[in-house]
């Protein structure tokens, strides 16, 4: 009887302390949409069908969008999302566009630009500077390569150029013709050598 009373009292005290602590030292948890947003490439291109990466992240977390709608992120982003959400990875939805080989950056032919500010309004990250009837130019470092400025330009003076490899960091290629971890692979590569 005494034991039961002591245990119940203990349970109540500890429960109370824990309950208080839960309220008092509450850690602001990272909502799912934030986590998804972190994985997305932040190109803000809208190819997923949502006006930016954050809305797409919200839609995924609400179960309204699939994880394979982000062409700039490509397969790597889809895989990461699949791991984050605990679902099966899948190939990119071709309806949203194709994964680009190399990152691009917008470039304005300043000789042709008429200063209409249409591209400035279209840019999701404010990476274009200029004023009405004055030449515009792209801040290349801030440009996400989303393409959104290309279409509104009335004189077609915006081009998407591949990012300079040197500026963007040239990457050492993975050595090819490597063995796989099985012994058979050695035989295969030896066969290739002939």
């Amino acid at each position, binding site marked *: 009887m005494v034991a039961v009373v002591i245990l119940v009292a203990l349970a109540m005290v500890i429960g109370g302390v824990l309950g208080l602590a839960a309220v008092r030292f509450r850690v602001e948890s990272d909502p799912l949409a934030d986590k998804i947003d972190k994985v997305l490439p932040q190109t803000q291109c809208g190819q997923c069908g949502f006006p930016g990466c954050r809305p797409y992240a919200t839609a995924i977390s609400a179960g309204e969008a699939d994880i394979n709608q982000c062409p700039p992120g490509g397969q790597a982003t889809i895989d990461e999302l699949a791991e984050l959400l605990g679902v099966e990875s899948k190939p990119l939805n071709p309806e949203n566009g194709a994964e680009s080989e190399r990152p691009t950056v917008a470039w304005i032919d300043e000789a042709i630009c008429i200063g209409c500010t249409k591209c400035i309004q279209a840019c999701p990250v404010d990476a274009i500077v200029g004023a009405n009837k004055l030449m515009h130019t792209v801040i290349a470092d801030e440009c*996400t390569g989303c393409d959104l400025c290309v279409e509104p330009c009335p004189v077609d003076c915006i081009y998407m150029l591949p990012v300079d490899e040197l500026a963007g960091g*040239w990457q050492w290629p993975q050595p090819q013709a*490597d063995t796989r971890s099985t012994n058979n692979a050695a035989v295969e590569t030896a066969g290739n*050598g002939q």
Partner: protein
Amino acid sequence: MTALYGFRGGIAGLPSNKEGSTSQPIQPLVIPQRLYLPIDPGVELLIKPGKRVLAGEVLTDSNATKAAVWHAPVAGRFVEIVDHPAAHPSGRSDPAMVLEPDGSADQVEFSETGWTDLSVERLIAIVESAGITGMGGAGFPTWLKLGVAESGRLSTLIINGVECEPEISCDDMLIREQADRVVVATAKLAALLQVETAYIAVEDDSPQAMAALRAAKAGHYTEGVPVGGVELVELPTRYPSGSEKQLIENLLGKQVPKNGLPADLGVLCLNVATLCAIEDAVMKGQPLTTRVVTVSGEAVARPQNRWALFGTPVADLIESCGGLTAKAENLVMGGPMMGFALASPQTPVIKTTNCILAQNRPPLDKRQPLMPCIRCGDCVDVCPAGLLPQQLYWFAKSGEHDKAQRHNLFDCIECGACAYVCPSQLPLVHHYRAAKSEIRGQQAQRIKADIARERMLARDERLARREQEAAERRLLKRGGRKAGTADPEAKKAVTGETRPAMSDEVATAMDRAKQLQQQADADETRASIESTGESVDSTEPGQGANRENGE
């Protein structure tokens, strides 16, 4: 004699193959037809193509990028800018200045400073304007390295003459021929930087260099110069004892901290050739435009060390060494352990080019047959950084970057010792390099994404604010027309509220409208019989519209 602390791992007894290139003195310059000087991205050219330049004239202004400036190595015409194969492992072509030497000895007037009355700040400025970068391998800007001296954290100066990689002997030969200069410059620099100890380190496989240094220290060349404080150290030959971190560990018994620099230990480490370049800049005001290059390898007719102008195509350099005896399978810039394969023999010599190798065997990453990793652990034994190369190999290959980083991938100095001893001939270092650059690329992307997210949020906020301001302005206008009372519900109408709260006036008006409506309905039913009640409705045309809105 300084006691050595030694360092972990490494390989003793590599076939050094230096006999050929050290059998004759450093050969004089041969001026090629054309020089190709690379233009670093973001650098401004000070000279227009078509102009004549003098030897030593400054060609680039790199204030914006902090890259080293380039000087014209000889007098000639700056012909044009072309895309030319770059001295870079990618093998890509980059813009380069083309200089056609005209054979004259015209040069700009150099202003010498001398070691006396030289301040550290002045030295740093001289080194920067002479375009001096580390000539041992990595090419780190020397003026930035010297910047540590200004902060007063410096206690040790190490002059690195340890040429541990096989085949390379340019520093060895430079010491043999200019030992007195090396010793005096070390003493002067040590005095200027006020360091406690100064070392000149060489490997014991070059007794001639050591003998020359000893003679210089004792000899009549250095009369009047206090060189007594300069300690000459002979290191046992063991690859990679010339690597900066390993050299410091060997001499001082301290390890450079992770993600740190030698400066954190109060150490300044300079290559011998870099020291000579500093000496030239101080004593003669001469910018860095030449260096000694070792040309070696089985396919070279006469292996030798040779002075070369920056921008000299590798093909011309090899030609001046008797050309190739056979078609070289593999042209390497740098040594056999750490160098990279050149895509084109037209690639120019740059400031870090210490060696050109023409080999008869294919590069390591193309060698066959590759065998699987058997986890023999030989690579662990030789790794000077104390890493687990076989684990890093698995992680790098399978793209498990997290794990690779947890196994300290970025502490790898890419010395190639693991790949050298690997019984399966795996190109281990290539895997690490690929993984490193992939991780760096991802990190850069993440930073860029964060900036983009911030900018997107800032823009959204701005647009929302603007919308709100516009709405308020609209309201003010409308409010002015309706004389104040209509303001609150007009605001709600703008914000999209479906059922505006009614003011008393409106409520009574609505009631009246309803009554009229009911009356109208009653009239209609009567009208079906009497067809005279229409007149009541037509007196209040606004009522119908009001009702539609209400429902």
